[in-house]
């Protein structure tokens, strides 16, 4: 029990850090893209690496969001049956689907990690001497925290309504 409590608090800490990162990165995205537009139209000048960097920001915020989405049950699923199940059965199904998802995400994290390794070997540079693989680290990170969160999730009961799943 001690361990679970520790993992829960780790989850909450991570959540705060990720949320904070999302706010910073998205603000940066808005300011940079707006700045690029203004300077392109007014001064006919824009940062060459600006657009590449912006797209990396999209991936980073997006995959951080995907990791946070577990906590709020917002991953898109077909979820047909659960609308017709009794609450008790619903909780049981929820526990098992969480474990299954955690296992699959674990494998995906490993696949993403080997993807980063390949990129590391090819030593390609994105811009300003920054290697591509550095930006791709978000993929294994995201799948790993997703696996972790689904595992934790299987110890909770399904409290959120279907309605919130699908917005």
């Amino acid at each position, binding site marked *: 029990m001690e361990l679970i409590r520790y993992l829960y608090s780790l989850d909450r800490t991570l959540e705060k850090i990720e*949320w904070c990162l*999302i*706010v910073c990165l*998205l*603000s940066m*995205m*808005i300011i940079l*893209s*707006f700045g690029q*537009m203004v300077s*392109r*139209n007014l001064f006919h000048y824009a940062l060459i690496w600006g657009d590449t960097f912006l*797209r*990396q920001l*999209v*991936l980073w*915020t*997006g*995959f*951080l*969001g*995907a*990791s*946070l*989405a577990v906590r709020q049950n*917002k*991953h*898109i*699923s*077909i*979820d*047909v*049956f*659960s*609308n017709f199940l009794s609450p008790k059965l619903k909780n049981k*199904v929820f526990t*098992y*689907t969480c474990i*299954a*998802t955690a296992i*699959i*995400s674990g*494998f*995906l994290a*490993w*696949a*993403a990690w*080997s*993807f980063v*390794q*390949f990129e590391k070997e090819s030593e390609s540079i994105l811009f300003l001497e920054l290697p591509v693989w550095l930006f*791709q680290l978000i*993929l294994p990170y*995201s799948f790993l925290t*997703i696996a972790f969160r689904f595992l934790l999730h299987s110890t909770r009961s399904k409290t959120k*309504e*279907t*309605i919130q799943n*699908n*917005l």
Partner: protein
Amino acid sequence: MIASAIFLLALLGVPLFAIIGLCALLSFYNADINAAAIFIELYRVASNPTLIAIPLFTFAGFILAHGKTPERLAHLSQSLLGGIPGGIPLTILLACAFFTALTGASGVTIIALGGLLYPLLIKEKYGENFSLGLITSSGSLGLLFPPSLPLILYGLVAQVSIDKLFIAGIVPGLVMIFIVASYAILRGKKIGALSTKPEFSDVPNALRKAAWEIPLPLIVLVGIYSGFFTVTEAASVTVVYVILIESLIYKDLSITKDIPVLMRDSIILVGSILIILGTAMGFTSYLIDEQIPMTLLETMRQYIDDPLTFLIALNIFLLLVGCMMDIFSAIIVVVPLIIPIAKSFDINMVHLGIIFLTNLEIGYSTPPIGINLFIAGTRFGKPVLALYKAVLPFLGLRLVGLLLITYVPALSLFLVDWISN
């Protein structure tokens, strides 16, 4: 065996990214391909300059949905249309379409606008069935109008010009609204007695209140088509504009309290789409390499040899997909597989996109499992069965619209051709 086990997992509610990831892992393992290949295609999509429009428009939509924009819009259209027969339903259709176009996810429209507008319909004695059906099915009416997220996503996945898609959706979107609106007006005439009086004196007031929001679609459209800015730049202008009006002019949202929450929630939505994109693109391109669509095509060729029959089959197939899957995953998974087949029947890719979205938006409210039925059921506290009955007439009408849009390509394409000349 394995396929049906995976299918069962999907039906039990395992998230789609994991289902698709599992399919990819298994088939790559069988084909002796390194699993790392799953993510290669993600980086091809991620090199598309328009990608950034997705988080920006989503965030802008979230801000609008959580400020008092729904109230102001409802107020404005009510004061304009309140006195005429069918006026309130028209109000709902227009407000919902406008709102869904900006927010992209139609479930939000039902929650945000539905609650405001449903009591008005009941007050005017349109009856529970008609009112529920109207609101549930209008939730997805705006998906064809720019800058809706599904349009952008289709453009990214199918590698079709998003500017063209934005224009192509306008006329078909209006056709859909027109069809449903005619039914609503007929219904309004039948009821006759109007409890709300025309409130034209209220129009200037309502206009003044919404004065900052009305120009938004114009900024996006005029900006893009005058060539002043690209879709991406339009997205960043929209975000900055929306933040300024909602937090500084209307003061509906606080920059320090509400905006960070909305940032997180909108990025969670973007993330749940992006992760499906991440796991699915590698898998679908593997399927294409394996000639799966072409094998399908050859089987189809035995029964179908003209584009018209193909489109009928496509419509039926997509309606089924639409009530099983949400629109974003359906686009990511199905579009890459359908494109090679559609190309062999000489279907225009822009037109195909409009057919796709129209189909999928109808699927949203198709019994037994269209997701908007459940959302509306929860929102209005009605059993899902009552909603099945309520949406039926609307479903019929929208199918008529779908047929028109599918078999008259000119509806989607003439504006595109006219503008590009």
